[in-house]
């Protein structure tokens, strides 16, 4: 099946390829009309920045190779980070970029997902009107779906509401920091949150450490030093600092009402208008108000672009699987079909304002989205008769 490609039998030659190429050209013209300039990141990307962003997991998801001079390289697993790197190296903000090309993902054994597939996307960088840019990207991706937009099922979320809810907790800043770090790992997030609540008595070793902290600085230093020498990047002072924090943490408990409140916020789901009402009702302290006001204005901006915004499905936890998003998130799920393998979302995207900071640069408002042209064609009909 060398002529087959992701989701498309016969998509590499003849009519099947012609149809795909025409679809990609249509999408690129649409993005160009929106003022986006073409950008073409290298296929092989240095591992270091991807590892910094995604951690060890990226090695399981990306194809890794070695170059004697350039060191560890990865076949680009997506476009957003490489496009952002190109922009940071010499682009002028604000900027709009478009791109189309293959990305590569390693898949778990037995997976039916492809290791190579096409993405066509757009990124809007440095636009100060976040609400308008969010709505514009959503509408661009919907339009890029073309015929497939009629069968796709949209879903939306907004991670800014989660971050606002975390900020609104009556908890020490370091607890909030721990929660923010795991927003994208929901199971771990829940464990971290619950560990701040009522908890079992500390282990003997932990109890001894806390006791040493309470006995004073000298006792703590002696306690740690007696355990052995320290090597590696972690300092003696950091061990002491965390010991003091653990002792302080042991004296406070996050009230159950606070834990329940955060989990209630995360559980809100439904048509956008109702979800907004539900979140307003949960926002007695007003911590969510700025984020909810943006949510409300975004619904208006979407409405102005011909989206039935009030009915648009919203899930407060949607987008937590997509690390680096920190605001509005959306996708267009493929319709389920019994006659073919499950398709991935046909399109999707979101806001990632903090990503440039994590790459060591100044903050830059950023929102973008992609479509998967091969999956779009697979969802709307046979691949040009080439199957």
């Amino acid at each position, binding site marked *: 099946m060398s002529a087959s490609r992701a989701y498309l039998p016969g998509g590499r030659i003849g009519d099947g390829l012609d149809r795909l190429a025409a679809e990609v050209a249509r999408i690129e013209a649409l993005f160009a009309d929106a003022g986006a300039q073409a950008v073409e990141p290298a296929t092989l990307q240095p591992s270091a920045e991807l590892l910094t962003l995604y951690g060890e*997991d990226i090695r399981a998801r990306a194809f890794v190779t070695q170059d004697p001079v350039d060191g560890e390289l990865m076949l680009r697993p997506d476009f957003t980070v490489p496009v952002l790197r190109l922009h940071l190296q010499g682009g002028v903000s604000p900027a709009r970029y478009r791109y189309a090309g293959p990305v590569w993902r390693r898949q778990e054994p037995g997976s039916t997902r492809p290791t190579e597939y096409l993405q066509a996307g757009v990124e809007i960088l440095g636009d100060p009107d976040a609400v308008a840019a969010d709505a514009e990207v959503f509408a661009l991706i919907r339009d890029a779906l073309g015929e497939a937009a009629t069968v796709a099922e949209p879903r939306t979320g907004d991670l800014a509401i989660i971050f606002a809810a975390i900020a609104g907790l009556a908890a020490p800043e370091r607890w909030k920091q721990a929660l923010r770090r795991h927003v994208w790992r929901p199971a771990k997030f829940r464990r971290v949150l619950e560990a701040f609540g009522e908890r079992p008595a500390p282990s003997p070793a932990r109890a001894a450490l806390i006791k040493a902290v309470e006995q004073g600085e000298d006792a703590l230093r002696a306690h740690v030093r007696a355990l052995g020498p320290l090597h590696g990047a972690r300092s003696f002072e*950091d061990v002491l600092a*965390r010991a003091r924090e653990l002792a302080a943490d042991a004296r406070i408990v996050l009230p159950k009402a606070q834990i329940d409140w955060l989990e209630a916020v995360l559980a809100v789901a439904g048509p956008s208008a109702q979800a907004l009402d539900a979140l307003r009702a949960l926002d007695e302290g007003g911590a969510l108000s700025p984020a909810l006001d943006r949510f409300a204005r975004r619904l208006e901006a979407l409405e102005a672009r011909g989206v039935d915004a009030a009915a648009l499905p919203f899930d407060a936890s949607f987008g937590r699987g997509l690390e680096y998003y920190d605001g509005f998130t959306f996708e267009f799920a493929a319709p389920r079909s019994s006659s073919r393998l499950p398709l991935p979302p046909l399109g999707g995207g979101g806001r990632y304002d903090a990503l440039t900071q994590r790459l060591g640069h100044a903050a830059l408002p950023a929102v973008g989205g992609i479509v998967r042209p091969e999956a779009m064609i697979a969802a709307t009909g046979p691949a040009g008769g080439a199957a």
Partner: protein
Amino acid sequence: MTPAQSSSDRIVLGLPSKGRLMDSARAWFADRGLNVVRSDSDREYAGRIEGIEGVDLALLSAGEIPRELAAGRIHLGVTGEDMVREKIPDADAAVRLLTPMGFGHADLILAVPDAWADVETMDDLDAVAGRLRAQLGRPLRIATKYHLLVRRFLRANGVADCLLVDSQGATEGVVRQGTAEAIADITSSGATLTANRLRPLVDGVILRSQAQLCLSLTAPKASAQVKTLDALASRLDVPALASVAQPQ
């Protein structure tokens, strides 16, 4: 290439070619009336098995046996569960672990410096990795040669901001050398860890491993071969072998 290529009516048993694992495996089969006879020169990786018909012997390095099982070039093999699960990404689809053999015990554990007074659990390790990232802008390094198993374990425990660095030997020493903050390695007694001032995390057992008799799910199983596997099942008293050795 397998040293012993089986014809379509024979099966191939892969055994470790040297070391304690080989001696223990030989003893295990001898206890069940099957004698592994090596060729005249002990240096040659060749031999035969006496006491049953239709079985060829392949002497392989223990680390190669999982790959040969997964590729279906040997029907049965003796190797550590750690090797099977590290070297075959989808081990359960390719290989059936038939029976633990009572030797080759080794636990794959995650260990940190003794002096990390504040770190007892995987959650502590994750918290420290987050601090290192925030303070130094770099991940916490874990030295190991078990990349697949460790990566999966970290993910299952929600541990972020860690980087695996490859260490193919003397892994306990790398923390002292400053090339990693923690290790994930095989330990049998824990003495080497203690000598290197390392301590396993209380919930840091990644895998409790021992030698296993393994069946390839991909090797050819013609009727004569199934008959031999059935005979082996009763000789070795491994009922699991008879129940899974169905013809294709």
